[in-house]
């Protein structure tokens, strides 16, 4: 038997672990881990495996914007219709419905400021139901999904006799 929450916590922190390694860590068999991973995937609990990359350290030029979108809900469809529409754009990395002063929060990645601006003015703003937008450009990433970008992994513990 595999403890589902324990398994999820493990691969949340390290998606690179293979079933054999996971099996050892959880004290179970490789087959059980594989079966559980498949079940989690089938049930739509595991959506995918991605890598956290600090693009700032590469040559890739890109900008990330957080775009607030204020909507007027559509009859029978609420906010879902517009949200689903916006999700179709590959460069929309995340899309959330949020409480507060606005309704949707998009995380949008593109090559440069101009591309972001034209996405906002040409794709979002004209949509029926969009009342207003506000775009924030990300200047520096300090922590991404629980990972501090400027971390120090050195083991600097000193030797003591004990």
């Amino acid at each position, binding site marked *: 038997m595999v403890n589902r929450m324990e398994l999820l916590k493990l691969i949340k922190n390290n998606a690179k672990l293979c079933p054999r390694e996971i099996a050892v860590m959880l004290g179970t068999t490789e087959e059980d881990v594989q079966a559980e991973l498949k079940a989690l995937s089938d049930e739509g609990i595991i959506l995918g495996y991605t890598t956290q990359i600090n693009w700032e350290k590469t040559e890739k030029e890109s900008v990330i914007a957080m775009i607030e979108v204020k909507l007027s809900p559509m009859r029978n469809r609420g906010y879902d219709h517009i949200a689903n529409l916006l999700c179709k754009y590959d460069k929309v990395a995340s899309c959330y419905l949020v409480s507060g002063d606005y309704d949707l929060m998009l995380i949008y990645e593109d090559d440069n400021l101009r591309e972001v601006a034209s996405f906002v003015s040409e794709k979002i703003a004209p949509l029926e139901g969009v009342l207003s937008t506000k775009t924030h450009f990300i200047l520096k990433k300090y922590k991404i999904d629980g990972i501090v970008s400027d971390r120090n992994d050195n*083991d600097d513990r000193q030797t003591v006799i004990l």
Partner: protein
Amino acid sequence: MDYSDKISDVVKKVPPSAIRRFFDLANEMKDVISLSIGEPDFVTPWNVREAGINSLVDGYTHYSPNAGYIDSRKAISKYISDRYGVDYDPNGEILITVGGSEGLDLVARALINPGDEVIIVEPCFVAYKATVAFAHGVPVVVETKPENDFKLQPEELEAKITDKTKYIILGYPSNPTGAIMTKEDLSKIRDVLLKHPDIFVISDELYAELNYVEDKPSSLVQFEDIKDRVIMINGFSKSFAMTGWRLGYVLGNRSLVAAVTKIHQYCIMCSPSMSQFAIIDALKNGLSYVDEMKDEYNHRRRVIIQGLKDAGLECFTPSGAFYAFPSIKGLGLSSEEFCETFLREKHVAIVPGNAFGECGEGYVRISYAASMESINTAMERLAEFVKELKEGKYNA
């Protein structure tokens, strides 16, 4: 001028740590993976650190009462009551010390008259024997063995009891073996103690929260009929990853705690105030972190056990602390030779078992308070090393 002959006899008689030379060698080498360190690799949880910082911001930079701030003692009392189901009065039955080690020293000085015997269960933490010797006591060793899961056997304990026996030091979960004593194991020790009403027990429970088979700690203090003769030494270093804060505590019968407090007040005055504030937060909000760290240690424990099996080393399955204690017998090297050659050839530092008592010869201590990556690499190198040893590569 050489003053070494001016040093007191008791201090001279205690040998320097056997592993000093070994650690000096490790420190000189670059790129060593260390599975030798007996402290958590985790940093103290942020909310606990913040509580310490805030105490400074608020100006709590003075001495605390000798026994510790009453709020800190109350927090400890509540924690022990919740986790052990045993009550200690914050006024008079709890002393906050500078780490668990101070507690060991205080108790030795408070209880031992010159010549009194103290039973020590080896292999064990290196300070047990030394603190007894410094207090002019006579350490009497009971050895534990892997065939008994490194648990103290009641009949073997009883065989060492004489009319000079003052107390027994029991350190479970064990550094270095990772063994634990369950409630049932302890009840047999309690039976022995009931037959010998003058003997005390010092129960070192620094690793109590790092128990991978029991949900709550088991301790001799949980037996009402001997509770008064058991002095619990506990602390925050291991469970809460707070080694550098130097904070521990001694719990026990009022008269015993008064005696250790007397020594503490003259030698130490009080434990660091900042740390005492931090532990209030640790006990209030930090237990979920303890569980998280424990889960992580448990994963590593299983990886180590598998790694040792893959390397072909026999190892008793550890159930507590963060150590494994595999046997290296039959490979043609002593513990020290094994560790030194392994360090030189494969750049991995582990600790020779004889550092923890003579019966630790033939074993090595591997700490899994290190990152999974380090553990994986170290285990690969260990497998290589053992294979090469068997092929006779390092024969003198």
